[in-house]
């Protein structure tokens, strides 16, 4: 026969073991809470925790529409930052970075081709026999 103190300790340990199940149940994640769910079903304390956390989650969901105050001029600053990229001297349209990349690739390709041609001419001049072939 266990003493009352032992029972209290056992019960609190069971509640601690069910902490994960409490938040999982509150979040509607019944699969995750299956293991310890049995304890919660019989424990008023844990059931109260489930209700409490459910309430917390409802409040959190409503916080999506909050708008925190931001410094004066922050919006203008963001707009100016975009205009540096988008405006005159920037790209001509959204996603225009692809065009810049294409231009850059064309430049690199052209320089590589010119270098290769120059190299062939240089080799040809050093080897007269090859020059006749070329």
């Amino acid at each position, binding site marked *: 026969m266990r003493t009352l103190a032992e029972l209290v300790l056992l019960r609190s340990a069971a509640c*601690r073991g069910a902490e994960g199940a409490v*938040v999982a149940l509150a*979040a509607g994640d019944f699969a995750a809470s299956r293991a310890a769910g049995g304890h919660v079903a019989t424990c008023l304390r844990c059931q109260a925790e489930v209700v409490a956390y459910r309430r917390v989650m409802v409040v959190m969901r409503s916080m999506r529409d909050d708008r*925190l105050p*931001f410094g004066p001029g922050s919006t203008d600053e963001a707009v100016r930052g*975009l205009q540096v990229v988008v405006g005159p001297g920037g790209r001509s349209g959204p996603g225009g970075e692809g065009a810049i990349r294409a231009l850059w690739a064309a430049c690199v390709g052209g320089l590589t081709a010119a270098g290769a041609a120059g190299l062939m001419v240089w080799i040809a001049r050093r080897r007269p026999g090859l020059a006749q072939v070329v």
Partner: protein
Amino acid sequence: MQTLVEAARAGDEAALDDLVRVTYGGTYTLAYRLTGNEDDARDVVQDAYLRAWRGLRRFRGDAQFTTWLYRITANCSANLLAKRARHRTEPLSDDEPVVDHRTEHDPERQVTGSDERARIAAALAQLPWRLRQVIVLRDIYDLAHGAIAKELGITEAAAKVRLHRARRRLRDLLAAESTEAGASYAALGGSSDGLGGSSDGLGGSTSGSAPGAEITVADAHAG
């Protein structure tokens, strides 16, 4: 909003400016909640808008524009915080929150005006940033697990594990805070009362329940 998005996609700069002005508040709020301070939030927002502009042609419109923008903001925020964590020279723990605890500087308290919401916001701010990211994105902004995992650069399983840990930690913080303040997690429907949450002397470690209360708890459980 849809009209502005279409016009901005077509290269209309005025529409883009308007789009920024319309969405700035929400984007900044998310960035602040993820980073925990105003300077970082502004940097994240700026980065997010630039990336949104670059990817605007890829936005197919099958999701809300704000949700798409929030995903980009989450990604920018994760990059910033991860980069900062990598470059830290002092051995600071991930568990150390970078938040300003002064009430007069707490935008959440200024905007909500509600103790209940402010208390939750304060508890969220105390979470380690890796945990805070997932719980904010999932439980406030309702992003799917897969989307959260993708934007944070982790697996979906890892995102779920972090979310579970975050919820448990948040619950502990709220219980501890209500015990200290004499206010109550019970006021939120919670159990720091006679039935006791796990934050009392029996189930947890943060309160100082009297021995008599323990017997009450035992009695309550006996049912």
